[in-house]
C-alpha cells in the first residue's frame, strides 16, 4: 500500500492569503492514498523540513507531495529533505500553489478549489513515481579551447594554470585574433600588442597547453566529461620541428597576396606568418597562392631554407582529442559596409572601416603608424568618423548595439591627435554609449583633449568631389542639414557573428540566437554555459563584447571547466529515458527525434527452439540523454519512457482531472 504524505505551505500569507490551506489539507486527507496531511507556515524553513522528516518516519510515508511554491524554486530542497530520512529523492512531487494559484487569482473560493485540484494531481502523479538513481561517469581531464583570440588565450591559460592539460585550436597561422590587429585599447590607451603578446608567448611556452594552429574542428561528439573532438590540422608545408623561424623564406618569396591581418590594406607573401610577433613564429605556405603548388615552378623557399624545413609533401592530418570540457571562443566578424550603397559600397578607397584605421595607426601596420589616405598616401586634414554602421540599423544591418564602436571611435579620435596633430576630426553619432568603468570620462576627453567635434545625426550620403569626399548629413541637435568636405571617412562597423557560425553551432550541438550568436544557458544566471553540459562560451561569439568583458567571461568559463575537472566522476541526470526491451520493436523513431544523439541500437539474443534468434532494440546512453522525452512521445509501442515524467505519471495526472 502506497503511503503519501501531503504538506501544504502557507508561505506566510503568500498562499494562505488567497487559499484556504486548512480546506486543502482536509481535502487531501480524503484521498485514500494519503496517509498523512498537514499544513505549515513555511515548509521550506528548517522547522517545516523537520516536520516532513518526522512525519515520514512516524507515519511510515513512502512518498511526499509538497504543496508550496514552484518546483523551480524548491524541488531540490525537498528532494534533499526526504533523502535525509531514507526516501529516494525522486519520490517527491510539488503542487505549485503560489506562482500558479494564489498569486494569480483573487477569488478565495475558486483559488482554493484549484489548489485542491493541483494537490490531487500531484498525489495522482506521485503514486506512479519510481525511485530513480544517478550513475557516474569518469571525467577526461583535458579541455579543448576553440579559438585563439584573447578569449581563448585567457581561458586556456587559466585552465592550464589550474593544472589541467589544454588543447588550444586556432584556425589561422597564429593565435592573437582580433586583439592583435588593434593598435591601442580604450579607455587606458594601452598598446594592444604590448598587453597581448606576453600572453601569447605564455601560451606557446606553457607545458600544459598543446597549441594547434592552422587547424579546424571537424566534428564533436560525446558528452560532458567525455567529448571526442575531431580536428583537421591543415598541411603547413613547413616542418615546424626543424624551422628556426629565421624568416628568410618569407623575405625571398616572390608571391604577394592581400594580407588578412592588414584588413585589405597590406600584402603578405605566400609563405607567411600572420604578423611579425606571431605565435608560433614559424611560417606556413598558403597553397592556394604558392607558385610551387599552382604550377610546380619556383621552390625558392626550399632553396633558401638552411634548416631544410620546407616540406611540400605534407598532407592534412586528422587528430582526435578526448576532452572533458570545451570552451568555444570563436570570436566575431565585422559588418561588411559594402551593404551601404550611400557610403560608396566599398567603391571609394578613402572610405575605410574602423579595423582598417587600426592598421593605419599601428606602428607595425602597412604605413608604419602614419595616417595616410589609401588612395594617394596623403595625410588627411579632415577625418569623419561615422558610428553605428551596421549596428542599430534594421534597414541595412542588425538591430542591436555592438557595444564597442562608441568607445573605439573615441579612442581613434584621440589617436588622430597623436599621429596627425593638425587633422580635424568629426564624429557622427546617434547616441554615445559609454557605459563602462572609465568610459564616460574617456569619451569626454575625446572632446576636450582631442578636440573631436561630435555631430548628432546620420550621414545620408558620401560622394567624391575632386580629391575630397563630401558628406551630406543632418545635425539633429540644431535641426540643420550640413555638407562637409573631408579627406578620409572611417566607418565604425559593428560586430556580427562569424561567417559559418551556424554550421559550427550545429557541429557542436549548441544553440544560437536570431543573430547567429551562441546562446547562453540562462541570460542572467548561466551566462557562460551553453545548452550542452560541458560546453562553455567565451567572448564575442556569444554577443558583442569589449576586451575586459571578454577576458572576464573567458576566466569564468575556465572556472566552470575546472569545477568539472575537480571531480573524478560526474553524476548523470537521473531523469532520463529508459527502454522497455521486451516491447521495443526496433523501429528507431526515437533515434530520429533525439536531439542529443543518446540512442544507440543493440542486439538481443534469445534461444528459441534451439536457434539463436536476434532482435535489434534501442538503448539509451544515460550520460548523453537530457530527458526531454521526445522519444517517449514518438515511440509507437510505449517502450520508451522518461524517469520523472513517465507515461504512467502524466496519465495519472490526467486521470485525476
Amino acid at each position, binding site marked *: 500500500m502506497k503511503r503519501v504524505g501531503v504538506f501544504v505551505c502557507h508561505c506566510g500569507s503568500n498562499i494562505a492569503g488567497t487559499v484556504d490551506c486548512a480546506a486543502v489539507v482536509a481535502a487531501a486527507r480524503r484521498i485514500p492514498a494519503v496517509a498523512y496531511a498537514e499544513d505549515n507556515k513555511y515548509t521550506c524553513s528548517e522547522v517545516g523540513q523537520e516536520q516532513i522528516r518526522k512525519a515520514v518516519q512516524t507515519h511510515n510515508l513512502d512518498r511526499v507531495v509538497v504543496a508550496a511554491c514552484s518546483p523551480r524554486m524548491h524541488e531540490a530542497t525537498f528532494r534533499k529533505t526526504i533523502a535525509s530520512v531514507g526516501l529516494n529523492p525522486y519520490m517527491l512531487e510539488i503542487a505549485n500553489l503560489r*506562482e500558479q494559484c494564489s498569486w*494569480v487569482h*483573487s477569488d478565495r473560493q475558486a483559488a482554493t478549489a484549484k489548489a485542491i485540484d493541483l494537490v490531487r494531481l500531484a498525489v495522482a502523479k506521485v503514486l506512479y513515481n519510481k525511485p530513480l538513481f544517478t550513475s557516474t561517469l569518469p571525467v577526461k581531464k583535458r579541455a579543448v579551447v576553440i579559438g585563439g583570440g584573447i578569449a581563448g588565450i585567457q581561458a586556456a591559460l587559466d585552465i592550464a594554470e589550474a593544472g589541467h592539460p589544454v588543447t588550444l585550436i586556432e584556425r589561422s597561422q597564429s593565435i592573437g585574433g582580433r586583439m592583435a590587429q588593434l593598435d591601442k585599447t580604450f579607455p587606458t590607451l594601452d598598446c594592444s600588442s604590448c598587453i597581448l603578446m606576453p600572453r601569447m608567448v605564455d601560451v606557446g611556452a606553457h607545458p600544459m597547453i598543446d597549441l594547434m594552429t592552422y587547424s579546424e574542428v571537424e566534428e564533436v561528439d560525446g558528452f560532458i566529461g567525455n567529448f571526442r573532438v575531431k580536428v583537421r590540422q591543415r598541411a603547413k608545408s613547413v616542418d615546424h620541428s626543424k624551422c628556426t623561424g629565421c624568416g628568410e623564406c618569407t623575405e625571398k618569396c616572390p608571391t604577394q597576396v592581400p594580407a588578412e591581418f592588414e584588413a585589405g590594406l597590406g600584402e603578405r607573401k605566400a609563405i607567411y606568418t600572420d604578423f611579425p610577433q606571431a605565435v608560433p613564429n614559424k611560417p606556413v605556405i598558403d597553397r592556394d597562392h604558392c607558385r610551387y603548388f599552382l604550377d610546380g615552378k619556383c621552390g625558392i623557399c626550399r632553396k633558401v631554407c638552411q634548416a631544410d624545413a620546407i616540406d611540400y609533401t605534407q598532407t592534412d592530418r586528422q587528430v582526435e582529442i578526448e576532452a572533458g570540457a570545451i570552451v568555444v571562443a570563436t570570436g566575431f566578424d565585422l559588418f561588411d559596409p559594402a551593404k551601404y550603397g550611400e557610403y560608396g559600397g566599398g567603391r571609394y578607397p578613402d572610405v575605410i572601416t574602423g579595423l582598417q584605421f587600426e592598421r593605419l595607426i599601428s606602428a607595425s601596420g602597412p604605413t608604419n603608424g602614419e595616417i595616410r589616405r589609401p588612395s594617394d598616401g596623403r595625410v588627411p586634414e579632415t577625418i569623419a568618423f561615422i558610428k553605428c554602421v551596421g549596428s542599430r540599423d534594421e534597414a541595412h544591418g542588425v538591430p542591436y548595439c555592438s557595444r564597442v564602436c562608441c568607445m573605439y571611435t573615441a579612442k581613434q579620435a584621440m589617436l588622430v591627435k597623436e599621429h596627425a596633430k593638425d587633422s580635424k576630426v568629426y564624429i557622427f553619432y546617434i547616441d554615445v554609449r559609454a557605459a563602462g568603468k572609465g568610459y564616460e570620462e574617456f569619451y569626454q576627453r575625446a572632446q576636450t583633449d582631442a578636440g573631436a567635434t561630435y555631430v548628432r545625426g546620420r550621414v545620408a550620403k558620401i560622394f567624391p568631389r575632386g580629391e575630397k569626399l563630401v558628406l551630406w548629413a543632418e545635425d539633429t541637435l540644431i535641426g540643420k542639414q550640413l555638407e562637409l568636405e573631408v579627406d578620409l571617412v572611417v566607418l565604425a562597423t559593428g560586430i556580427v557573428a562569424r561567417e559559418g557560425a551556424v554550421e559550427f553551432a550545429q557541429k557542436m550541438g549548441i544553440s544560437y540566437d536570431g543573430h547567429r550568436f551562441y546562446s547562453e544557458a540562462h541570460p542572467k544566471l548561466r551566462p557562460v554555459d551553453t545548452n550542452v553540459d560541458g560546453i562553455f562560451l567565451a567572448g564575442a561569439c556569444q554577443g558583442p563584447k569589449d576586451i575586459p568583458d571578454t577576458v572576464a567571461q573567458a576566466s569564468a568559463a575556465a572556472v566552470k571547466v575546472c569545477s568539472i575537472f575537480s571531480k573524478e566522476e560526474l553524476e548523470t541526470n537521473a531523469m532520463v529515458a529508459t527502454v522497455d526491451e521486451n516491447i521495443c520493436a526496433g523501429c528507431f523513431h526515437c533515434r530520429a527525434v533525439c*536531439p542529443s544523439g543518446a540512442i544507440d541500437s543493440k542486439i538481443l539474443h534469445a534461444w528459441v527452439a534451439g536457434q539463436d534468434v536476434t532482435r535489434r532494440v534501442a538503448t539509451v546512453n544515460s550520460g548523453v540523454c537530457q530527458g*526531454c*522525452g521526445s522519444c517517449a512521445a514518438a515511440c509507437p509501442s510505449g517502450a520508451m519512457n522518461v524517469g520523472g515524467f513517465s507515461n504512467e505519471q*502524466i*496519465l495519472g495526472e*490526467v486521470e485525476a482531472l
Partner: protein
Amino acid sequence: MNKSKRDWEPRLVGFLCNWCSYAGADLAGTSRMQYPPNMRVIRVPCSSRVRPEFILRALQKGADGVLVAGCHPGDCHYTTGNYYTRRRFQVIKRLLTFLGVDPRRVMASWISAAEGGKYQQVVTEFVETIRELGPCDFRPTNGQIFVPAADERTDLGVVS
C-alpha cells in the same frame, strides 16, 4: 468530473514545458498577473514529450480544452523538441476533426520564460474561446460515433 450545464465552467489542461512556458507561468505569478482559474497545469520536460494520447485522454476525462505550450521555435532547451511539437500538431488537429472534436479545443502556443504577460493572455483568451464553444462531450461512454461528411473524407485521407 461534474458537468451540470447550469453552472458549467470551462476546465482546461495545460501541458507546459519546464524550461520556457512553465517558467513563463511562474513569472506571471511573481508579477501578480491575474487570469481565470480554469487551467490545471501538468509540467512536462519539453512540449515534444506530449503524446497525442495525453491530449485525447484529457478530453475523455472531461477537459474542455487542452493547451500545449513550449519554447519559441529556435529556443528549445533541447534544441529541436518544439519543432516536433509543431509538426505533430498538424496531425493532431486533423485527428481531432476526424474524431468530431472542434480543433479549437486543442491549441499550441510558444511562451518563453520571459513572457508572463503572454501566458496570462493565452490563458484568458483560451478560457473565453472554450466558454463560447461550450462543454466538450468526448467521453467514450456517450455512444456517439462521428461520421465525417463525404467531402471531408478525402481531405482527411480516409478511404471509405
